[in-house]
């Protein structure tokens, strides 16, 4: 067990060291955020002229959801696995003494460790200007960490589908579309009609975007926050089991293409 943990830690440290050298590349991922915020600033200001909208809340909401959704090129987790399978590179991983998930997970964790720096000034700002309380910040951190792993397991499981179907762009786009609608990145979920809100509970996407941001900005009660954390953990366990099943069965039917 210790050897396994050590392997992971070593790889994480290696990736962290690598990312520290190329920090600009990590924050360049946020290059879409100014364009996005530019649109939202003017859109909601335009709507607020003639409607009763909490403009400040909307801007903060889209800023935080933008930072979360652009935190990592999630699509690449699945696409990299797809390319690995289609080009035959997966054969190299099968003859190494580590799990297939290891390099992806370690890279992801390392990236997120460096990226999390960006939240510090934002959270401090929110706290100082009295928008949020300290407990909300704690719950935000916990729920976004669990949500981060849920997000990883979703895209990793998606990538493993390439063991069955090879090309999985269609799957990736479907998940991307679903995520856009039910995660809360399109519009705050509480604005949606109740039927839609209930529909979003079927999917795990809200646990990475909507739940943490809602916890933070709406100063949700500790009990509800705790409930959400438990639900998120259950989703994480289910997704991990699903990924494991996909991998075990997928390996049997996989055809390794010559690279």
């Amino acid at each position, binding site marked *: 067990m210790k050897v396994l943990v050590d392997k992971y830690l070593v790889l994480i440290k290696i990736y962290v060291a690598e990312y520290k050298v190329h920090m600009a590349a990590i924050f360049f991922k946020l290059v879409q955020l100014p364009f996005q915020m530019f649109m939202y600033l003017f859109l909601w200001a335009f709507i607020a002229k003639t409607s009763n909208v909490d403009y400040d809340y909307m801007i903060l909401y889209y800023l935080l959801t933008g930072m979360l959704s652009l935190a990592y090129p999630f699509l690449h987790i699945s696409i990299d696995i797809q390319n690995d399978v*289609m*080009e035959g590179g997966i054969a190299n991983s099968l003859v190494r003494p580590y799990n297939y998930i290891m390099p992806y997970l370690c890279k992801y964790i390392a990236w997120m460790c460096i990226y999390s720096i960006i939240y510090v000034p934002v959270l401090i700002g929110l706290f100082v200007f009295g928008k949020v309380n300290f407990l909300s910040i704690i719950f935000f951190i916990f729920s976004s960490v669990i949500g981060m792993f849920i997000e990883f397991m979703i895209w990793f499981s998606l990538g493993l589908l390439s063991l069955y179907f090879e*090309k999985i762009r269609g799957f990736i786009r479907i998940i991307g579309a679903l995520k856009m609608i039910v995660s809360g990145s399109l519009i705050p979920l509480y604005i949606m009609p109740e039927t839609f809100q209930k529909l979003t509970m079927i999917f795990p996407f809200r646990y990475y975007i909507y739940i943490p941001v809602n916890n933070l900005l709406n100063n949700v009660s500790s009990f509800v926050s705790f409930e959400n954390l438990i639900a998120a953990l259950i989703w994480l366990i289910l997704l991990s089991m699903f990924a494991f099943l996909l991998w075990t069965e997928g390996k049997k039917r996989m055809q390794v*293409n*010559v690279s």
Partner: protein
Amino acid sequence: MIKVENVSKIYKNNISVLNNINFDIADGEIVALLGHNGSGKSTLLKCMTGVIKPTCGKVLIDDIDIFKYQRKMIKNMGVVFNQKPSFIVDLSVKDNLLFFKTIYDIDDEQYEDMIDTIDGYIDIRSLYDKQYRKLSFGERVKCEITSVMLHKPKYLFLDEPTIGLDYNAKEGLYALLRDYNKKYNASIIIITHEVDYIQSVCNHALIISGGNITYNNSCDILNEQLHQQGKTLSIKYEYIKDNMKMKKLMEKYSENKVNNQSISFTIYSEDEKNNILSSCIECMSVLEIKLENINLREVLEDVLQENKKSC
């Protein structure tokens, strides 16, 4: 005709890869471009095909600056780069070849004719219905070579075309190139490390070392030089019986290499061999005797070394 005039290439990190290269390739020549790894062979090939711009100098093909007017000369060239496929990976070989047929604007008759010809040498039709990405490395190489010959180019540039090919396929490829050269008077430039095949295919050799052309002549002369190198007599021994006799032997036959408990002599005649053998038996406890032809690769290394020193 290909003229390379004062071509130098210095990369962005100030690494000079090519250094004032000058040579001509006449029509109908098959040229072997040889050299160590990192000597600049591929860079030279890319300059000759107009892919990269030389830092100074120019390459003229049929008196046209190939970098400036590359698009005009494209249909006269066929290029295969080392480990860079030009096929669309998720389509079949047949579909890919049809694509090349279309973009080169080849009529059906010529297409079928060339496929039949090439198939006779490297058996391309057996790969027709397979998806490109499911082919083995050698099979992909065959496909690439086929794709660059369909339009009967006047100039063929091949960067290590025999990598991944089995013996028969290699023989087939070289036969194809010889026949293609004879039939169409095409100039063929081949980058290769397989010096064993030089004589059977190429009539002109260029050796590049450290960015300079260190040999630019007929393959026959090179082979003559190679054959003058003689044979290697290797002797393994347990211990030395007589140090003085050993010392005299080493001085008399100075072309030798000592390695732990073995010595190698380069010999040029039967008499030399007999003399060395009898001397060795006298001065050392011989365990094993081996007589082999000089490894041509080693000779090429020596040629390169020699040229390096003379430069």
